């Protein structure tokens, strides 16, 4: 280990054995609650000290928030009408079959 302190070390990467590049691969496991206790603690410690990773995790949270707000499109009125026709036909068949 070199005694030299590289400038980026002070700026971006906190001490500990978890690199930023590794952390970004653990975000989903973290958010899903799938990290073992020890790894979860390492993850949180890193994020609390690393501006870059904190920003990255926040970007992902915002991504999820955007995805969760996208409304699906409605069925076309024709498709809905066809389904109601199918329902009526099903009902007729049910009634002519009698209770099963």
């Amino acid at each position, binding site marked *: 280990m070199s005694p030299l302190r590289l400038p*980026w*070390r002070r700026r*971006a*990467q906190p001490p500990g054995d978890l*690199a*930023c*590049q*590794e952390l*970004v*691969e653990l*975000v*989903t*496991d973290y958010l*899903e609650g*799938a990290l073992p206790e020890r790894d979860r603690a390492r993850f949180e410690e890193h994020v609390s000290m690393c*501006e*870059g*990773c904190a*920003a*990255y995790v*926040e*970007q*992902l949270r*915002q*991504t*999820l*928030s*955007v*995805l*969760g*707000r*996208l*409304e*699906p*499109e*409605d*069925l*076309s009125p024709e*498709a*809905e009408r*066809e*389904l*109601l026709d*199918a*329902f*009526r036909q*099903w*009902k007729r068949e*049910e*009634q002519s079959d009698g209770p*099963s």
Partner: protein
Amino acid sequence: MADDADALLVERAREGDEDAFAQLVRRHGPSLLRVARAYVPTQAAAEDAVQETWLGVLRGLERFEGRSSFRTWLFRILVNRAKTRGVRESRSVPFAAVGSGDADEPAVDPSRFTADGAWTSLPPRWDLDPEAVARSHDLRRIVDEAIAKLPENQRVVITLRDLEGVDSETVRNVLDVSETNQRVLLHRARAKVRKALEEWIDA
């Protein structure tokens, strides 16, 4: 709860109440269409898969016991129909194929890191207002395109989990994919959508 409301509507539909069936179709039709779209290449094929799903519902209505939620049952029928259709239109690949190892698909471009794995430059703080963003056609297009470009299994998982808000246990039941594989697929899909947003924000 939504599930209770569904159970009531299913009961009424079973007794022949058309209005209850129409309500079920309106409640769940849009979600089914969106999930179907993850499997098939065209809107028309997705609509067909949704139609087939509801016909399957009618055929199975007598037998539906409510052991799973109605929504889970619906998604299961849909996924079956949509997969068959996807195969026919030669888009679908077997679901078990999660793909090659993690190293091949990093969440963030390796050039963003030093040899020691630290950021070369810090990712910027985003300040998206999700409400405003959801109304932005531009952004909707960006996200839709990013999702469309995903491999099918990633697209299906992110659609169910993050767009539809289905929990991981239900997705496991609907797709027969382990929680671990589900997380891998979700991770890759989310990373790519984040990247697409990043490029849009930077531009």
